[in-house]
């Protein structure tokens, strides 16, 4: 009966506590209950080298350039595939201003057995490439989507889906893209956490947490836990996103 009172993530917390890497153990001290665990945030990731908060080997390492500072973030390739960055299609295009985000989302396509068109940084080249490959869906950020607008206007058919991956959305500026896709997904994500909530595009998007993601609202801020063991697990992570 005692177990029934445990938070569903408690076994995951215990697993992390028992791991040889002590990034979380050092921060948690003697606190054992999930709901009482101290919060972590970007400052912890910036202060602690990735080599000291690595719970899994291998994979893609990204440079995350945040306003608070620069740090490394690691992702196992299979974990990238488990993210909800896009919707699987035959000819996806991946277009991000940040090169690291672009590589990660392209790897997501490969994990789903599709060959993505990875847009080059130069928007003129990206437009040229999109036309050549006859892309059928987009995984992108808002800035890159804006640059691809001329391609969307020229197309004779709608894209099956545009997935916009970001930490903030402005529906009033994204509304102009609605005629060019069957659906537009807004995917709430941070570079170091991956995706954690999604919503269909609307005037007032309502985000739903993705599977394996637990979102608490503490003092008006989203605090995220992902229940899968990641290269650096995300446990009670302050996202900096107001909600």
């Amino acid at each position, binding site marked *: 009966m005692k177990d029934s009172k445990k938070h569903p993530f408690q076994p995951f917390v215990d697993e992390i506590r028992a791991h040889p890497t002590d990034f979380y153990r050092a921060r948690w001290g003697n606190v054992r209950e999930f709901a009482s665990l101290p919060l972590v945030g970007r400052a912890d990731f910036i202060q602690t*080298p*990735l*080599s000291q908060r690595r719970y899994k*080997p*291998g*994979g*893609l*390492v*990204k*440079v995350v*350039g945040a306003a608070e*500072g*620069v*740090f*490394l973030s*690691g992702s*196992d*390739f*299979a974990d990238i595939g488990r993210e909800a960055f896009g919707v699987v299609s*035959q000819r996806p295009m991946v277009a991000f201003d*940040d*090169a*690291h985000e*672009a*590589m990660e989302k*392209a*790897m997501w*396509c*490969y994990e789903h*057995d*599709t*060959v*993505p*068109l*990875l*847009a*080059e*940084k130069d928007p003129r*080249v990206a437009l*040229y*490439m999109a036309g*050549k*490959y*006859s892309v059928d869906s987009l995984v992108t950020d808002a800035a890159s989507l804006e640059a691809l607008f001329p391609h969307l206007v020229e197309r004779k058919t709608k894209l099956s889906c545009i997935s916009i991956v970001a930490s903030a959305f402005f529906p009033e500026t994204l509304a102009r893209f609605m005629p060019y896709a069957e659906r537009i997904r807004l995917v709430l994500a941070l570079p170091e956490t991956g995706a954690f909530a999604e919503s269909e595009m609307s005037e007032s998007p309502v985000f739903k947490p993705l599977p394996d993601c637990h979102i608490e609202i503490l003092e008006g801020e989203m605090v995220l836990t992902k229940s899968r063991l990641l290269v650096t697990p995300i446990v009670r992570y302050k996202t900096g996103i107001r909600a």
Partner: protein
Amino acid sequence: MDRSDILAQADEVLAHFSPAPGTAKSYVLRTSSGTTGAPIVLPIEKALNPILIKWFGDDMPTLVCYGARGTRMYNLLGMSKIAEGRKRVLVLDNKNISPGIARLIDDFAPECIVGFPSFILKVSEHFSHVARAVVRELHVAGEMLTPAVLKIFSTTFPNARVASTYVCSEAGSIAFSCSHLPPNQYHPKFDVSIVIESPDDEGIGEIVLSAQANGIQFSGYHPGDLGRLHNVACPCGKSLALEVLGRRGHDFIKLLGATLRREEFDRAISLFANLIDDYRVEASTVADGEVLRGRIFLKTHTNGLLPSPALQQEFAARFAAEVFVTPTRTIAGLVAEGVLLPLEVEFSSEPFAQKHKDIKLQQIS
């Protein structure tokens, strides 16, 4: 066969591109730069040949330093596939190169670096002495390994072995270096046929290759480089070596991220038609301490009296400010950024000797 033939075939391949289920990771869509015409978008098949498996099949943390995202993806995907996810790969972007990266390089501690020599050298300025000593392998491609580059590599990464690949953006890997061969010499892949077109007395001519790659039949294709073939009895068992001597220099030269285009030099020279009759450009890289810088030497034939030293100086300044070597920056701009050394100009009243090929731009080591 020229580039337009490749473009037509590539469009056809791309239109019908539909990889079989389970094979997506064997392909990367790459776009050539378009330096010599319209960009080519092509599905490049990532063949896992034994040399790449040997190079990338280990667990060494690897730093990737290429410019085009498609090329970065090509390397990342190959490494993830060959090493089956065991390998840690950090694919660096130009915008990451700032003093803040030093701490992250120390953290990542790459043992292997792959990329363009000039990109690697740029990043290496931010390596601590400890991080430099950890590097054991440098796998480079896309640029000549000049003595200046090799000298900086040997002092910057004292424990690193240098291996290189001769690549063509449309056909992929053409030839691989060998520890028994000198720099810039390669053993061609078994399925690539190479001939030297119109060789001179020293056997130097334009490289012409034939191969079946990425669904395209490359037949008598000119990748744009000069070279010569050597018959060798290499201890590795191979009997042929291709020596690559750089871009043919007819139309453009790549220099540390800048592109020197003949048409741009022609345009700028035409602005000084009352002074300059003809010109030649020599481009090279020189080691400036542990930094590699580009050197542009403009030789001119004046159509009258030699200008005064003051006028020569003024010409050099105006010319450097006129010639664009990136879409937005001139020679003078890159000199100010420290990428290039100040433009050197030589005036002569003697016309240039007329040769078989009118090579205005030349890359020298």
